């Protein structure tokens, strides 16, 4: 059986906070020369990873449907003289890269996932499959402006992170691939954040005759 245990859960919910408000609130956690260039999602992802000391041998699984929405909006607005800084910041896994580059923390395995209604399940399955003793599952979204008004960005800004290891002692939850079927259950990053916050069990189909199960431990 493939299973891992969830530890050190970190949640950040900035709701409808502006990037400037988030920056002011979290700036003490980051090097001064890095914080002024970080996006709101980069700050939130950095803040949840701040409590998780990473090692080079760790695997990082990153889930974000929309990723760097504000950098994308601002980069598009910079045409016809596109901004090099916003171009590089607007790439999908930039939030994690902002956080880890600020710490100069290399990692061997880094799998950034996008996707929509099945992203929660796909991120959890990916976290079970990577060849690392410790996996960091991290995700989040950033509240957009004009992209949000067109249903192309998140309504809220949030981030989450946790360790997934083979160690059951002190674990908050158990994640496993089990034998059996499960009904299809769409769940995006916001639904995963809510399940982690409310400690709601999750069950998803994983393959014919296999299901993915997240159970919270007493």
């Amino acid at each position, binding site marked *: 059986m493939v299973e891992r245990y969830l530890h050190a859960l970190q949640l950040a919910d900035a709701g409808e906070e502006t990037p400037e408000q988030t920056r002011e609130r979290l700036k003490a956690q980051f090097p001064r020369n890095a914080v002024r260039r970080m996006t709101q999602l980069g700050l939130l992802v950095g803040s949840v990873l701040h409590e998780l000391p990473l090692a080079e041998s760790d695997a990082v699984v990153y889930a974000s449907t929309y990723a760097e929405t504000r950098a994308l909006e601002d980069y598009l607005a910079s045409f016809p003289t596109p901004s090099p800084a916003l171009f*590089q910041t607007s790439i999908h896994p*930039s939030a994690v890269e902002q956080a880890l580059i600020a710490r100069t923390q290399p990692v*061997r395995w880094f799998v950034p996932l996008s996707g929509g209604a099945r992203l929660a399940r796909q991120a959890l399955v990916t976290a079970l499959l990577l060849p*690392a003793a410790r996996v960091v599952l991290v995700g989040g979204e950033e509240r957009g402006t004009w992209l949000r008004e067109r249903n192309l960005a998140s309504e809220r800004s949030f981030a989450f992170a946790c360790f997934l290891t083979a160690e059951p002692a002190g674990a908050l939850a158990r994640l496993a691939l089990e034998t059996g079927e499960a009904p299809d259950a769409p769940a995006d990053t916001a639904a995963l954040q809510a399940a982690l916050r409310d400690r709601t069990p999750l069950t998803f189909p994983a393959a014919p005759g296999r299901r993915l199960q997240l159970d919270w431990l007493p």
Partner: protein
Amino acid sequence: MPTSDLIAEPVAIEACDCLTPLGDAAATCAALLAGRSALQPQPVQGAGGGDLVPLALCSPMAETVPPRWLPFVRQLAARLPDAGWGRPGRPVFVTSSNFGVGSLHAFVRDGDASHLPYGVPHRAVEFLTRELGWGPEVFVLSHACVSAHLGVLLATRHLHAGLADRALVFSFDFLSPFVTGGFHSLKILNAGFPAPYAVRETGSIGLGDGTAFAVLARTGGRARIAAQAVYNEMFHFTSNRPDGTGFADCIRPLVPLLAGRRPWIKGHGTGTLEAGRLEAAAFAQLLPGAPLVSWKGALGHTLGSCGLVELALALAARDAGRIPGTIGSTAPVFSPAVALASFAAADHDTALLASNAFGGAHAALLLDHG
């Protein structure tokens, strides 16, 4: 699961092909062997004008509705074996760097909301899924220019975990002013044509359209991926650690598997000077004598699809019996191992195919083709 520096589970390639401005994998390989390049000087912002830069385009760089990439991915997908893709046990792994983001640029420029449904990754992939008749089991991976490698890696893990009996990795990246403007702003896309691994005063890259697929299974197939490795430096967004150790840290776990083998190397080789020098040095140190080529001097950098496009070309080169050399480059080069001319595939039994990306991301796989 214990920590490992590599994925050592072999995976079979049942089918693999690509589409570039030079044609499918066989036609593109033949063009490379003939020394042809698809790169042409083009305005950096398409109809918006700007400096002339080297681009390899399947069609003019205009943002259309539906997007201009649709007919090309349809053309390629028509070559896929019919296997119920996207249904349980037959997952699809779609990889790209830009997906349909050029459509957002068109919306901002023109105010035409008909571009919006293709603008963000999961919407572009949902559109692709409907167009190609796939089921909902579709993963979306986005890690800039190592995206395709990660698709292959994750598909491999699904196969060996028993979550799939066959898996489809599908990559596409088509240029738009969004991305050409970005690379031009970084000054690495300029008036010069790329000369990978060449010692020059100024580095230059070209950019290109590309789409590719690979059908993977646990056994059988026409070739085998023996092992895969990745490494993420997290040193700087757009540069590598100056000592080049990031390149070596990625490929080092693969080196013991090459004992007694006769490898050749398809490097990333975009045409930037510092990364090219570091990459060539790492290969020369860890795999001395293995010929090193890059094909981005002819095709441009196909970004998130490059790992899969170049895998398809490596297989086509094996089938053709000759490995294309590093088109666009002339001596002096960074390493004596850089192969400027084509060479016989029969002299080798393994290819190491490597790609790199923003953030100091590195990925490599070993392709058995003996």
